[in-house]
């Protein structure tokens, strides 16, 4: 019973949050200074300028059209043996037009057994979602996908 009530409260709370427009997240409205990085700066901060290879090994799943920019599901699956010798060290989820390009970093270990991560992020408008993957050998892979976002109830 407690679990059912918990799930109900999540749905109610998320529905309320969904009405709020995330458009204030666009780059032009972002709070200046501090830790907020735009996409290119975030990539450099993560990779240190190292080469990044676009790779089919990174399977990024996002909706083509997001019904609600406040809650966009993102799923990443990286083909990897996930052994001590060869595993996915980190997955960085970035967006190309949010004021803060960073959404989440996940640091994995071989115990995870799969290079998998899923979450839900906010998109301020139509843009690309990017999965920047760091492997245990220090190399970087990437996959990017566009998401169309319609904002506002009036269309």
């Amino acid at each position, binding site marked *: 019973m407690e*679990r059912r009530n*918990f799930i109900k*409260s*999540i749905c109610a*709370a*998320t529905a309320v*949050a969904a009405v*709020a427009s*995330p458009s*204030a*997240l666009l780059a032009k*409205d*972002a*709070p200046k200074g501090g830790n907020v990085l735009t996409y290119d700066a975030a990539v450099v901060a993560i990779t240190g300028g190292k080469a990044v290879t676009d790779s089919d090994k990174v399977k990024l799943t996002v909706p083509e059209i997001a019904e609600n920019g*406040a*809650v*966009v599901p993102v799923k990443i699956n990286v083909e990897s043996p996930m052994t001590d010798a060869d595993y996915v060290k980190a997955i960085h989820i970035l*967006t190309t037009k*949010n*004021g*803060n390009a*960073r*959404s*989440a*970093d*996940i*640091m*994995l*270990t071989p*115990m*995870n*057994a*799969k290079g*998998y*991560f*899923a*979450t*839900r*992020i*906010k998109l301020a408008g139509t843009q690309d979602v990017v999965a920047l993957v760091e492997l245990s050998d220090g190399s970087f892979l990437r996959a990017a996908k566009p998401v169309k976002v319609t904002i506002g109830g009036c269309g």
Partner: protein
Amino acid sequence: MAEARKSMIKFKPKKFKVGDVIKVDFIVIHPMETGTRKDKKTGKIKPAKYIDSITFSLDGKPFTSMKVWETVSTNPYFSVNMKVPGKGKITVDYTDNTGEKNSKSKKLKPKG
């Protein structure tokens, strides 16, 4: 005393054996306030309040960690995989940008 923040750890599937790779989902009620939205009544900016760090541990040993920003959705959901090594306790420790610290645990009970 403040009420503990509501959160849930889910294993998928619910029934599993030692050696199986399961999904570990974590979901938590949290505003993930960006600090860019205005309160419509007062006209003041709502201060940023968002989870910024999460660690998953098994019997006290971390095996997954995350850095999170305000761009993650309200009432966030996170999902990872784990190979079940045996019986134990999974703990998710998380903090937010205001320094609020929370923790949620769930027993890992493989069958056979």
